């Protein structure tokens, strides 16, 4: 199958009868654990109850009022450890075999309802009376979009500055298309544009103190959500190696017009991906789907310690990826023209738990070996752009160039400047970024009106 075509198709969602049938399994809990489990307060108990009582438009309204990226979250959230985790329906397996050990699929219902709103042309959100205080949002990723939508709903003129050609952040440039399609993203962005949010793309706010100057240039408050777009590297200081990519660049390339050349670079080759998180899983699975000869996942701990979600790990293995566990990369083997020839690894065994609570890898002496490979993708973490502190020099930082902000309000050390999303939390979920954006929007309104 042509990989380009394959990458266009996202898994199909539920249809209305399926969604209703699933909603009918909901026990309508009095103090529903699902609603407590959503970081963005999307209120699954409420929208599922509404669907159950055929109030389909009301269900859509609940989602979109509380989570402007409800469709994306429905598809991308690790629901098994959030809303669906404590779903009471899963405990009724003895009595109700149709629900055997299966929570109500909240994420899929949520995605369906949002898609349904697009199909039937239902717009649940309206702007309230226009206000006069302009707000600037830096970064059109999930946190920025959420903050912008929340403020726009309340009548504020909002301008979102985005350094890349299109809005969406990680949803646009960091997710593979078969997991989350561009069409889907465009529909969800349209809901935000319809609220009157103005997007200025190809418009980085990255000059010296440029983010802070927004306050002087007429904006009454600023929300900083630039995200984490620099990559951790195995050898940060080393000159570039032909064939070694960061996950940030590799995943971006699949979405920003470089799909064909990336596919050509992967097809038939041996690919090694370093890392054990969700991003690493996207890298290995996509490489396999692009027709790589062999794809290796190199992880220095074991299967149980991987940060990737269980379903992602299984999907990667189903795609034919070889999991090379308990192997730690120590160096690249480079050939003529700085062309990658292989990855030097050392076997590890697990020692005592480290600060993360996971058992830490200990190299096994004398066990070094070389895995021959053509392409290596480093998926070992994202961090802020190195010069980002210069964009907002007065804003106090936490470690690793992250911004220090109040977790409940997004307030930074500078009056009028708020921050949220990954630039505050470090790598986190889309739904957490949505929560940050909402919280900051509320704090901005309190800040403006006392």
């Amino acid at each position: 199958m042509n990989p380009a075509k394959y990458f266009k198709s996202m898994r199909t969602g539920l249809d209305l009868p399926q969604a209703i049938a699933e909603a009918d399994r909901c026990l309508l809990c009095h103090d529903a654990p699902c609603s407590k489990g959503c970081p963005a307060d999307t209120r699954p108990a409420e929208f599922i109850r509404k669907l159950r009582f055929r109030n389909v438009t009301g269900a859509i309204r609940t989602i979109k009022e509380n989570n402007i990226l409800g469709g994306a979250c429905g598809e991308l959230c690790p629901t098994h450890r959030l809303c669906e985790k404590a779903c009471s329906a899963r405990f009724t397996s003895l009595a109700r075999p149709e629900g055997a050990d299966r929570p109500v699929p909240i994420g899929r219902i949520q995605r369906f309802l949002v898609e349904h709103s697009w199909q039937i042309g239902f717009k649940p959100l309206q702007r309230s009376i226009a206000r006069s205080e302009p707000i600037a949002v830096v970064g059109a990723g999930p946190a920025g979009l959420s903050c912008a939508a929340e403020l726009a709903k309340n009548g504020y003129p909002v301008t979102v500055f985005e350094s890349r050609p299109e809005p969406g952040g990680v949803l646009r440039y960091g997710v593979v298309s078969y997991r989350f399609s561009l069409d889907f993203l465009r529909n969800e962005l349209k809901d935000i544009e319809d609220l009157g949010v103005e997007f200025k793309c190809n418009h980085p706010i990255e000059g010296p103190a440029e983010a802070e100057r927004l306050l002087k240039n007429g904006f009454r408050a600023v929300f900083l959500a630039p995200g984490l777009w620099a990559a951790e590297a195995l050898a940060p200081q080393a000159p570039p190696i032909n064939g070694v990519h960061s996950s940030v660049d590799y995943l971006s390339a699949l979405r920003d017009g470089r799909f064909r050349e990336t596919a050509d670079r992967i097809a038939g080759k041996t690919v090694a991906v370093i890392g054990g998180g969700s991003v690493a899983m996207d890298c290995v699975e996509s490489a396999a789907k692009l027709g790589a000869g062999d794809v290796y996942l190199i992880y220095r701990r074991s299967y149980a310690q991987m940060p990737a979600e269980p379903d992602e790990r299984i999907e990667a293995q189903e795609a034919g990826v070889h999991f090379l566990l308990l192997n730690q990369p120590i160096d690249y083997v480079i050939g003529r023209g700085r062309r990658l020839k292989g990855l030097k690894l050392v076997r590890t065994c697990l020692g005592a738990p480290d600060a993360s609570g996971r058992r830490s890898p200990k190299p096994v002496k004398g066990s070094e070996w070389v895995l021959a490979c053509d392409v290596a993708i480093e998926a070992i973490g994202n961090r802020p752009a190195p010069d980002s502190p210069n964009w907002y020099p007065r804003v106090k930082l936490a470690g690793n160039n992250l911004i220090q902000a109040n977790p409940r309000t997004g307030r930074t050390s500078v009056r009028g400047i708020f921050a949220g999303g990954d630039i505050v939390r470090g790598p986190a979920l889309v739904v957490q970024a949505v929560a940050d954006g909402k919280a900051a929007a509320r704090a901005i309104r309190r800040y403006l009106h006392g």
Partner: protein
Amino acid sequence: MATNIDLSVDFCGLRFNNPFLLSSSPVSNSAEMVERAFQAGWSGVVFKTLNSDRLPITHPSPRMHYVNYGGRPAMAYQNVEQISDRPLRHNLLEFLYLKKHYPAYPIVASIMGFFEDEWVYLAKACEDNGVDMLELNFSCPHMCIEGSGHKVGQAFHLLERFTAAVKRAVSIPVMAKMTPNITDMTEPALYAKKGGADAISAINTVRGISEIGREDWVPRPNVFGVGAISGTSGPAVKPIGLNFIASMAKCRELDLPLSGMGGIETWVDALEYLLVGATTLQVTSGIMHYGYRIVEDLVEGLSDYMASKGIGRVSELIGRALPHLQETDHFDLSRQGIVQYNLDRCIGCGQCHVVCSDAAGQAVEWDPRKRRPRLIEDKCLSCMLCQAVCPVPGLIAYREMPSGWKRRETAVKDESHEPELKHESFTKEGPHECVA
């Protein structure tokens, strides 16, 4: 399957291998269909209602609709189906075929006429072609011609006259099929008996509206812009069917064998109809939904149940619930009880708390920390709503309280309004029933 269980029943002198018959409907439209039903295990058939070819029958299109409940399809069906649209001679040929090839399977012919001569003509035609019994269709719910269908069923003298005319003309047994679209079915049933009916069958479909289009506001089925109040059937009408069969079975004056139908899908439904007094059982909607094969489970389920109860013959079950069925003034109100929760199996959904708060005695408090209900015993009304909504069967049971136990009175919200109260006790003596 349990052996030495005899499911056969005697009904108006006819022997049926088991109580399960096709009722007069689309499921009994042709010999080809009925033959397959016999092979599947049905013991007899009430063939789709015949007419005299005098008035052409054209079926509306579409003919049926349905009522879904939640994600589950068709808790009820809605039909504007007419009587047989086949020429009478074709239907009579079908009888000859079935009698020749399936002599042990009684054929009941359903007929409908508009005046005496027509009823008699149809009855004789059936008898002459080997039919074992007649069912007089006094109950089709969507006939609009006076003197037909349920309109006859509601005009008792006509019903008696037509029955008597048929009885005079034929020697095979005659059963009258009743409409449920009436308050008291014993009344027309007694008229049928006066006319000489040998048995009563009930219920035909209940007049209803299944659904109204949200875009076009046309009741379903939508026959090109027009809907009609028409026949509702299926599981949703079972309580109505049981009511009418039980009422007729309890009527000493009537004392006729009964053929019960209305929402029978499983052997449990069948058992209930037997227990309230039906001898044979007829099925259509269950077959419309699942096919003839369900008879296997009706037969096997009922046999195994009877074996487990040590009951060898179906006749031992017929009417056995009737002694326990009384008017509400027979209740012993001195005995009271409450619900009892077995919280070991509670999953913490809290629906008991919701329904008790909003529809009962506010007797179930909620512990938000443990996510478990807590029962305040002396406020429990024993309404059993919590049991109805609890997703864990058996978690909530009923428990009788010792004699002398008292339920707490419902509290008055604010007694400080006492000075404004306008109230005197009603002191007149009067009878304990309504008088004009």
